[in-house]
């Protein structure tokens, strides 16, 4: 095909307009982002979670998570008064489309627990990776280099929280990145942004102005499976003892 000067005159402005649209949907680059200035975590306020599944859907859309795998999911606990240690837990399709209605008259209590990578500072998954493809970044986020990962799944076995999976097409380990592409540009995570009740809040523990500090001072906050001593940074408010 011969491209004449007339073609170029038409195409160039069109390309410029298209490129402007692309840029409009892209957060600004943050060349000034310093990893050592941050120590990221997540605050999960259980009493605020309504189990709508917005966070799961937002995560799947934002991060192109394959069907059947989850970077985040929501569980619904039913703790009977008589079986405190054996809760009944469901998470249909990761809670993506919400939950079935509770039976009227059911005794015990019901509550929702959002789950995700705990971005542990002493993470067992990074410990076992044979090539160091997964690592704790200086800002506290546990990441995976997909160009380096062997896909051996040792990290999947080592994670006490079931947060990792092998990507069915990329054949590498995958999990929550705390929306690293967003938080390094000054945005919050997709799940936090989509949560209608503020049950999830991104927290920067190195930022003295972050409300997390006040929250931690005034609330009884726990991490999942503290006996694992992983230095988990997903902080749960209102965590019931039956939650695993």
């Amino acid at each position, binding site marked *: 095909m011969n491209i004449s000067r007339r073609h170029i005159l038409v195409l160039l402005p069109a390309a410029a307009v298209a490129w402007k649209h692309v840029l409009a949907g892209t957060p600004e680059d943050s060349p000034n982002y310093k990893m050592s200035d941050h120590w990221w975590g997540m605050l999960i306020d259980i009493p605020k979670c309504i189990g709508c599944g917005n966070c799961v859907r937002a995560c799947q859309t934002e991060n192109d998570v394959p069907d059947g795998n989850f970077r985040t999911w929501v569980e619904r606990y039913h703790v009977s008064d008589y079986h405190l240690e054996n809760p009944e837990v469901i998470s249909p399709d990761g809670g993506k489309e919400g939950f079935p209605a509770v039976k009227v008259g059911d005794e015990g209590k019901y509550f929702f627990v959002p789950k995700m990578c705990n971005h542990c500072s002493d993470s067992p998954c990074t*410990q076992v990776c044979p*090539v160091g493809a997964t690592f704790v970044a200086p800002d506290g986020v546990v990441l995976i280099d997909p160009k380096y990962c*062997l896909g*051996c*799944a040792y990290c999947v*076995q080592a994670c*006490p929280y079931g*947060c990792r999976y092998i990507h069915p097409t990329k054949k590498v380990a995958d999990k929550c990145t705390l929306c690293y592409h967003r938080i390094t540009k000054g945005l919050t995570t997709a799940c936090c942004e989509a949560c209608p009740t503020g049950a999830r809040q991104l927290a920067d523990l190195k930022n003295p102005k972050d409300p997390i500090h006040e929250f931690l001072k005034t609330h009884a906050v726990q991490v999942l499976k503290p006996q694992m001593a992983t230095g988990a940074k997903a902080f749960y408010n209102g965590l019931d003892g039956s939650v695993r």
Partner: protein
Amino acid sequence: MSGVEGYMYPNEVTLYWSVLIVLYPYITGLVAGAFILASLVRVFRVQAVAPTYRLALLTALSFLLVAPLPLQFHLGHPERSPEMYFTPHATSAMAMFGYVYLWYLMAVLVFEIWLDYRREIVVRSQQTKGLLRLIYKVMTLGSNNISERSLHIDERVGWVVTLIGIPSAFLLHGYVGFIFGSIKANPWWSSPLMPVVFIFSAMVSGIAGVMLLYMAMTKLRKQTIDIKCVDTIAMYMFYIFIIDFSLEMLDLVHRIYEADESFRSLDFMVHSKLFFSQIVLQICLGTLLPLVLLFLAQVVKFSEIVRKRIYVFCGSMILISVFAMRWNVVIGGQLFSKSFLGYTTYKVDLVTKEGLLVAIGFLILPLLFLWALLKLLPPWPEPSSHQAASGD
């Protein structure tokens, strides 16, 4: 969700370590066990089992050559596996695999076999013709001196290599146990006893494997099975099996008595999903039955033919039992949820990359390697005419 009982974390429903990962500790176990049998002759001077010495070394090498293949097939990106050598992650138990493997293969096994066979290799490089001659020439590595003094040095060095080889064999297989035993997230695996149990079960399986190979090959070669040899092997197998079983029972009793938060979940799994492979196959048929029979063979004066049959049966059952043990560890460790609230199911594929046919192939491949090695480096002297005629 199909195949799921109770609640599994959503990412746990699929098992990522398949039957190929079961094969890996099984095969390395056979290697370690076969080498330990060889070391009985070389280091501990148990001359009764000398007829199996070279066969044990070649068996160990055949299986060791295949050991990394199931891992390669399992990896999502096998082309990146050399990174484990170039950029190993110091805190990872798995990262050391390459080094331990290479050390054991090259510095111990190949070196010992070369030293042991050097005289024959040199002689054959002079007596054979064509391609074989070239192969033997290469195998001499330019070392053609087979004087008495030179062979004496080979003998001394070989002894030292075997001596180093014993802890190396323990390292190779103990380390495999450590890969599982060090996963604190998984209570089915997490145990300091795991490497020790792996080592002892490895010794039993390797010894049983070589014993069966020795008996089968002697039959095929129409030679007489050295009954003193197999009696001695069976005796060692029996004692080591007792230690192995005691360790496994210690682990079991400890879990039952301690009954921590995971116990209810694991107990249910053993009584349901793993009932056949663990209770029936591994413990009853594969351990208690051979132990009773081997014990009887020690205390009752059976005839030679009965003893041989007992040994063949027990050896076969031990191989099955140790495979079942590896299965129960690897697959069992992924069948329950880390929430301790549910169970998933493992369905073995047939023709996929990690399927049953590939697994069977990896169990046959070492035997093909062994066949080639036996042709190249016969472990027994050429039979004289009257021996060949006598048979067994």
